């Protein structure tokens, strides 16, 4: 049997490739197309795949083969497209996936908290006891600025300034957390550094302000948003450490495979931490500096701490699966085999 020459092949099949190309260049996801168009698309796709294999096998010219490669490849991407985004997925992430992922990787969460809060508390205590320690960490100018900032009580700022600070907190703090996470890819050393560094600096500032006699002011200011902000930074750092650790303890996978296996959890955790930081930025800008009475701020801080703890511990837990065959309403034990 004489097979087609390339000319004949192209002449016979080109109309279908063009039709497929037209659907592809319309740029619409498949589910937006009318039903008839979808089934036509899948027929055209299969046709193009067969043509690609034929062209490659017979040895038609490379320009034709790569043209078909391109058309069939893009059709494949359209056919196996990711499911469309739903708003519900964002809620699912916050309400269930984030606390679940944190619990699954609890030891890195704990490690992040430890590496961040222990140096912070240690530096606070050291600076209160030996105020000159602060000058080993920060310059006198910076320390003076911090002490001045909290020397007066909080009378509330004007609204514009509040918005200004919200922008600054988002830019600065979420950026810190993201870097704290991302640098964990360097075998965890980046996250380790940022956790310790931020812990030491924050602890020193806190201790210095307390030693200067403005402890009540700074703690009242920090308590509410700090619950979210500091925890989120520790979470981000912990996720970074998890990423670094996956490169070391691969659990029998290749290094890349081990990293990849953590990918989903890591993405969920860091996105959850980002949400926490946005909440923190809002509080830090509008609530913490407001003239609300300190006892109310302390109460709010306590409430948020409890809520966060409950959320981390219980949100997204599945009800325990009951033993099969004893489901209520199934009418007794279920027996295997076909139903009538």
């Amino acid at each position: 049997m004489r097979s087609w020459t390339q000319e004949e092949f192209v002449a016979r099949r080109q109309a279908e490739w063009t039709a497929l190309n037209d659907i592809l260049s319309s740029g619409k996801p498949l589910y937006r197309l009318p039903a008839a168009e979808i089934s036509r698309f899948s027929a055209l796709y299969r046709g193009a795949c067969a043509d690609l294999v034929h062209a490659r096998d017979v040895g038609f010219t490379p320009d034709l083969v790569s043209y078909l490669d391109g058309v069939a490849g893009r059709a494949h991407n359209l056919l196996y497209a990711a499911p469309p985004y739903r708003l519900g997925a964002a809620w699912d992430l916050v309400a269930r996936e984030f606390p679940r992922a944190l619990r699954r990787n609890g030891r890195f969460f704990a490690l992040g908290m430890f590496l961040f809060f222990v140096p912070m508390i240690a530096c606070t205590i050291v600076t209160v006891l030996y105020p000159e320690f602060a000058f080993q960490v920060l310059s006198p100018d910076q320390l003076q600025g911090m002490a001045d900032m909290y020397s007066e009580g909080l009378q509330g700022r004007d609204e514009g300034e509040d918005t200004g600070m919200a922008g600054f907190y988002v830019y600065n703090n979420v950026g810190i957390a993201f870097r704290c996470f991302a640098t964990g890819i360097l075998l965890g050393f980046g996250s380790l550094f940022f956790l310790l560094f931020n812990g030491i600096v924050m602890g020193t500032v806190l201790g210095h302000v307390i030693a200067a006699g403005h402890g009540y002011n700074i703690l009242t200011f920090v308590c509410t948003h700090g619950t979210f902000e500091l925890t989120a930074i520790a979470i981000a750092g912990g996720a970074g450490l998890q990423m670094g650790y996956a490169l070391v303890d691969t659990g029998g996978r290749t290094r890349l495979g081990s990293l990849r296996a953590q990918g989903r959890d890591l993405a969920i955790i860091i996105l959850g931490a980002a949400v926490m930081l946005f909440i923190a930025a809002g509080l830090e800008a509008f609530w913490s500096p407001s003239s609300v009475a300190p006892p109310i701020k302390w109460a709010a801080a306590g409430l948020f701490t409890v809520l966060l703890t409950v959320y981390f511990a219980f949100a997204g837990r599945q009800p325990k699966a009951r033993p099969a065959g004893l489901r209520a309403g199934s009418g007794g034990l279920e027996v295997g085999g076909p139903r009538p």
Partner: protein
Amino acid sequence: MSRSSRSSEARGGAHRAPPLDTVTEIETPEHIRFRYQLAGPARRMMAYLIDLIIRVVVVFFLILILSLSSLLVSDGFSIGATLLIVFAIEWGYYVLWESLWSGRTPGKRSMNLRVLKEGGYPTGFLDIALRNLLRAADFLPFAYSIGLAVMGLDARFRRLGDMVAGTIVVVEDLRRIGHGLQIQPPPSAAELAALPARPNLSATDLEALDLFLRRVGTLNPAREQELADIIAPVYARRLGVRYDHSARFLALIYLRAVGRTA
């Protein structure tokens, strides 16, 4: 390309070895293998620069507008809004474009690039968030040094973010079927009569000839002649014919083999 054809030649051409160069093969559930051309650092850098320019221009104009509006609202407000926008553009630009435009940004689109999962599937939101958050690590210590170094060491040109998220960046071939090779002046009857009706050339032969003939006219004439003189005798011997002009002879057997002179 040339490396891959040489390696398959070495194995007798019966079984195509996986290409060794910037092409990656992806097998679908239908057992079809697609070839994607991987995007190298140069092309990705161009796309990055285009995106960077877009971001800088957008931020510049927003700051301009906000600083004008600060006559109306307080300074604090406009500074805050500016910082929020800078944050959103710094961290959100790529995530937004790549997730809403199936793996492309304006810069990637203009360079014909697309982000895909390693299996050839489109990327999901979490993959995109992960690969773009890790830009902070790829960027270190400055100007994407780590990212470039890692990309250079990886066979698939992945930076750290791609490795964690399991993504690759490919070049999309949007080309149309060309007119095919033309030969000037058109082959004469005498020339065609001297050649076998269907020269027996393998796919690898055709690929090599195609790559050469496509470059005719863009190469230095002396170099063109030199290359043609190396290849032509091989085919002349195999087909048992003689030739006068080596480059023209190669074009003739190519056109004959793909049935364009029939």
